[in-house]
């Protein structure tokens, strides 16, 4: 049984309490140097986001610049393969090729209203970096993107795109040189530049209010899905929503308007790397313990001594040793079903979708697709998969397996 009696002071699935907690996870574990900026965001994000003029500008940009609404596509041949009814929410068709731009636009508009002129971001796969660089170009803002050296190598096309868009890409050389360390460097930059800078976090991680703010900007995914499903099937509610989870922003957006619809099963798919127990994995809910990373309490992959470990995934966007506090709560409460897919399974799923539907998905997204094999569906089930991004950036990796 799923426990639905979430008391007010523990937050609900959709909304954290005033201290930023979803159940046991969340909060704002930040050094004092960040307090003023985070406090200002906390005090103002809801008021700014729901201002009519903001909403107007946000919705216009989503429609005219990003190309929303993105289609909900009935994947006939994939459905036949899995003997059920599968719909793909086509976030890959967004401008810049992933869901990340929904959040980047929202946060840039917010930063402008906070009077910030300099934008910093971290990126793993480079999709969030590209999205942020794109919106900064559009708005004429300075943009600095931190990216792990390892990711700069494996996501070269996105590095080139960011540079072409006028952003400065700063290699993160510390620690494991991937997304975790890029995030550390971005936070350190913000500590050193508190006055003119806004930090656009790319996922539902970080100190409160980031997880809630990013989830709200991404919630357009499930808002549209409900309407589109109604047109396709006559019902707004699917039986399953599936999404890959790195930090968890595409999943948070795809789940958001279904969180309180308990008939809808929410399936989050993490990256198992070489296998959950191989020592080369990024399956945080399976391997993590409660801890504090990047300003919030959540599940964190760490040693017995509390040192954060280097995860592994073939996909740079899922190569992260933490998970957003909302997802830690969905996991702990049983509201979410957490699965994982290995590097090889993800690769196989990428080729399967390419051949069956003519869509080359991002490596991150391929993890969600790979989990189809682990599910047992009824022929009458409606399954929505968040197709979080397109695979162009991953061609070098895909070519190796052709």
């Amino acid at each position: 049984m799923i426990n639905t009696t979430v008391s007010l002071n523990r937050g609900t699935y959709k909304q954290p309490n005033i201290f930023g907690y979803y159940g046991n996870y969340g909060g704002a574990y930040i050094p004092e140097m960040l307090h003023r900026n985070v406090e200002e965001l906390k005090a103002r994000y809801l008021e700014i986001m729901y201002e009519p003029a903001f909403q107007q500008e946000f919705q216009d940009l989503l429609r005219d610049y990003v190309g929303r609404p993105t289609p909900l596509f009935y994947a006939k041949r994939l459905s036949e393969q899995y003997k059920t009814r599968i719909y793909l929410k086509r976030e890959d068709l967004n401008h810049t090729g992933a869901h990340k731009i929904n959040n980047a636009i929202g946060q840039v508009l917010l930063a402008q209203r906070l009077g910030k002129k300099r934008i910093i971001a971290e990126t793993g796969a480079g999709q969030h970096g590209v999205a942020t660089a794109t919106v900064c170009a559009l708005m004429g803002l300075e943009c600095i993107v931190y990216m792990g050296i390892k990711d700069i190598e494996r996501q070269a096309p996105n590095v080139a795109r960011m540079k072409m868009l006028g952003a400065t890409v700063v290699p993160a050389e510390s620690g494991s040189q991937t997304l975790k360390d890029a995030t550390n460097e971005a936070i350190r930059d913000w500590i050193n530049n508190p006055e003119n800078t806004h930090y656009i976090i790319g996922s539902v991680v970080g100190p409160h209010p980031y997880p809630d703010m990013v989830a709200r900007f991404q919630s357009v995914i499930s808002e549209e899905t409900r309407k589109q499903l109604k047109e396709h099937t006559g019902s707004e509610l699917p039986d399953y929503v599936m999404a890959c989870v790195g930090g968890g922003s595409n999943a948070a957006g795809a789940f958001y308007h279904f969180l309180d619809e308990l008939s809808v099963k929410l399936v989050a798919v993490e990256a198992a790397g070489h296998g959950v127990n191989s020592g080369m994995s990024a399956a945080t809910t399976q391997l993590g313990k409660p801890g504090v990373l990047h300003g919030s309490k959540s599940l964190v992959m760490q040693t017995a001594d509390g040192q954060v470990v280097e995860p592994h995934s073939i996909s740079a966007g899922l190569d992260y040793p933490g998970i957003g506090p909302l997802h830690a709560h969905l996991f702990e409460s049983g509201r979410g079903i957490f699965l994982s897919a290995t590097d090889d399974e993800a690769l196989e799923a990428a080729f399967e979708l390419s051949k069956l539907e003519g869509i080359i998905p991002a490596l991150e997204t391929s993890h969600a697709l790979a989990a189809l094999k682990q599910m047992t569906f009824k022929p009458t089930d409606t399954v929505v998969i968040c197709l979080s991004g397109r695979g162009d950036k991953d061609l070098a990796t895909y070519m190796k397996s052709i």
Partner: protein
Amino acid sequence: MSRIKELFSKKASRVLNVYCTAGYPQLESTLTIMRALQSAGADIIELGMPYSDPLADGPVIQASGLHALENGMTIAVLFEQLRNFRSSFTPSVQGTPLEGDAGGDEAISIPVILMGYMNPVLQYGFEKFCADAAAVGIDGLILPDLPQHEFETEYGAIIKEYGLDFIFLVTPETSDARIKELDALSSGFLYAVSSSSTTGKDKDFGAVEAYLQKLQGLHLTNPVLVGFGIKDKQTFDAACRHANGAIIGTAYIKALEGAEDIKVATKAFLNGIV
């Protein structure tokens, strides 16, 4: 009275707190450094517990932490090293430790504070951490990513129960009202971060002066020590003009880098300052 309070009751100005990373440069350096700091004239020792993701630290302290982790430092190892640091096993004459090398293993009597990040402490077990820290003779804690709300609702009571002081940070961006709140929650002293930065950044010290003067005017209950950017006599003197003392970290870690003799290097470094 806590050891820190006692210190400030005797010495209200030019209090020097020196930061070092436990287990750096060698795993076994911790006690050698602490003894060297005490005999060279430090008033307080701030022992950093290394962490893989130290958000508030610049490259120098980050690197020392990484080095210490590679050396095998953990909280458990640190408490083991600290088990007897308050007592002396070496010959002494009527309770006074012998001078020079003969007194090399003297007990450490000055206040010692542990500085670190929440994650390793939570993993160790917060209450067990406080209990073990108090048991070995630690006086206070600095945990920069322990927020006020969680301190007030959950952790502060545990820290108090074990008689440890807890030191909050304030910055030039912290409002006066909040400075007063954090001062009221702190005990031992208040840590005034000199400018908005990670550790080890060189920033213009001129602007700091006005900020410290403002702090003086707030009539805080705790003494104030200034940290971040204090690296030599000049910056130490400047900090001490409007505060009870200062904290040196990055500059001392740099002085230890490649030092042949920790004692000599420490003495040389502090001689230039106190």
